[in-house]
């Protein structure tokens, strides 16, 4: 595809209520720097229905231009409709680079769009820069379950595309935005959307396990010993306003549902604080949480590998440590 501008695009994923998912707003922060280095504008692309809130947020967090596609057929995410919309926009405006948040939907959409545009896509990036020599975006991402990092470039195809992991970048402080708003009308027919949501199953008793968006996660592994142990973790989580996570060992033992699982076969998280309780720290688990800002590990075994990546490691019995910790948090609140 021909580029027509040096602009850097950030796709802003929306919720059904028309608000923006955090990751899109987070990506405006590195997007601004990269756009400046590329000599282009930072453009937010908002697709959804009744998206005023998302547009307002993108404006407040640094977008210089916002392209809006607001129609009923975009209320719910569908691969087909969103691919048509995004590809139509890219072909019209010709940006040089584009980022998409690496949420479930983002990772469904990204490869579909890049393939239709016949360009390269780098998945689940955790660091971004502009290569000084070539001026290309240098996308850095983990592979081999987090054991290896790779920096990838897309020298000859445009736009250069990447999905970027939620929680890696921080939203900028909101300002009074001055973005130019551009509205595009891209109708999509029923026949063009080849999937249909037949049923939505919310997890019983856990209406929303938003680990990806959580700022604090209290996570438990084999050392938690059973569902009763997770009740203790839940108490700490409530005091801290945290979400409960789990290792595969705990999920496979049936102590907590898979929706809580962090790691290679679960979710990838990047909270400000990750408290690992009775988690040994297997490579597969670490792959899902190594993007955390601060890691606290509580484990009886002083040789547990989790201590190698912990900022604060408590060697001790979690059943003795957690009640005291809960108490301390309660005291501090008063």
């Amino acid at each position, binding site marked *: 595809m021909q580029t027509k501008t040096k602009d850097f695009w950030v796709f802003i994923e929306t919720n059904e209520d028309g608000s923006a998912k955090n990751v899109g707003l987070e990506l405006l922060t590195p997007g601004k720097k990269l756009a400046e280095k590329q000599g282009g504008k930072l453009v937010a692309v908002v697709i959804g229905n009744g998206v005023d809130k998302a547009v307002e947020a993108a404006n407040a967090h640094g977008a210089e231009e916002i392209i809006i596609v607001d129609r009923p057929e975009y209320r719910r995410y569908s691969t087909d409709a969103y691919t048509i919309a995004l590809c139509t926009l890219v072909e019209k405006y010709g940006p040089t680079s584009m980022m998409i948040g690496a949420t479930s939907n983002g990772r469904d959409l990204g*490869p579909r769009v890049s393939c239709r545009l016949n360009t390269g896509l780098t998945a689940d990036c955790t660091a971004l820069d502009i290569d000084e020599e070539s001026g290309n975006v240098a996308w850095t991402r983990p592979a081999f379950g987090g054991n290896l990092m*790779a920096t990838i470039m897309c020298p000859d195809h445009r736009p250069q595309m990447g999905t970027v992991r939620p929680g890696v970048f921080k939203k900028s402080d909101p300002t009074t935005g001055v973005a130019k708003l551009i509205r595009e009308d891209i109708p999509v027919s029923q026949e063009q959307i080849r999937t249909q949501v037949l049923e939505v199953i919310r997890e019983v008793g856990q209406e929303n396990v938003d680990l990806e968006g959580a700022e604090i996660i209290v996570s438990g592994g084999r050392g938690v010993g059973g569902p009763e142990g997770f009740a203790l973790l839940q108490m700490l989580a409530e005091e801290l306003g945290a979400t409960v996570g789990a290792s595969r060992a705990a999920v496979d033992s049936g102590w907590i549902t898979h929706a809580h699982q962090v790691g290679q076969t679960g979710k990838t998280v990047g909270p400000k604080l990750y408290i690992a309780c009775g988690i040994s720290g297997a490579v597969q688990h670490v792959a899902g949480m190594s993007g955390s800002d601060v890691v606290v590990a509580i484990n009886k075994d002083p040789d547990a590998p989790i201590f190698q990546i*912990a900022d604060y490691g408590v*060697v001790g019995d979690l059943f003795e440590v957690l009640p005291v910790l809960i108490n301390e948090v309660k005291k501090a609140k008063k």
Partner: protein
Amino acid sequence: MVIHMNILVCVKQVPDTAEIKIDPVKNTLIRDGVPSIVNPFDAYALEAAARIKDANPDTKIVVVSMGLPQAMAALKECLAIAADQAYLISDRPFGGSDTLATSYIISQAVRKIETVEGKFDAIFCGKQAIDGDTAQVGPEIAEHLGYPQVTYGLVAEVAGDTLSVQKETEEGSEVIGVKMPCVVTFTKPAWDPRYPNIKRKLAANRAEIPVITAADLPDIDLSRAGLSGSPTKVKKTFVPSRKIGGVKIQEEGAEASAQKLYSLLREAGIV
């Protein structure tokens, strides 16, 4: 009504990333001696196909892999578990392909395999491979073929000319109806995939697995394959720096440790 489903399952042979160690001196990955396995997510895709076959015994399951000749072992394992036929896509011009080139080659090979096996109703893939972790090849195969896709599937059922796929979402799960032919990528379900039995294992060992090369794909544009046909280039790889200098807390008694932890977190402004 008898349902004749024709399902293609795409599998990748991967190093068991759980067995990968870091050379502490050179700070590089030690890949020697790491066992190769069927990518676990692809095993879930195969299990989903096997469950459709359980419900509709006239279903045919074909597996395909792109890789080096040793990927035959992964295909034989799939035959031993549930597959009826296997194909290997392997040729020098395919080496070094990124996800766009890989999915292009596989989509070309799908059309070739269909001349023998008949048109596929559904193509199942793992949501991602545990070595590359990109989750891109499945959706890209769908795009090359012009098929709809469902990602993060757990289980699928046939309902007329549509497949109803239960998929994992951030809030729980959803059932998606998708018109066939389609591509579905699968994630880890709540159950374990089935194991091979001895009889199937013996038959799999004797199976002849056809190899598809560039010469077998008359329509392929080789400028879109391999390292040179890949839009993305790996500039460098490196082992991530490990955190060093973490604070270890081991006071006299758990209470003192917990209190120290809390005061350190407060001092650092973390809580």
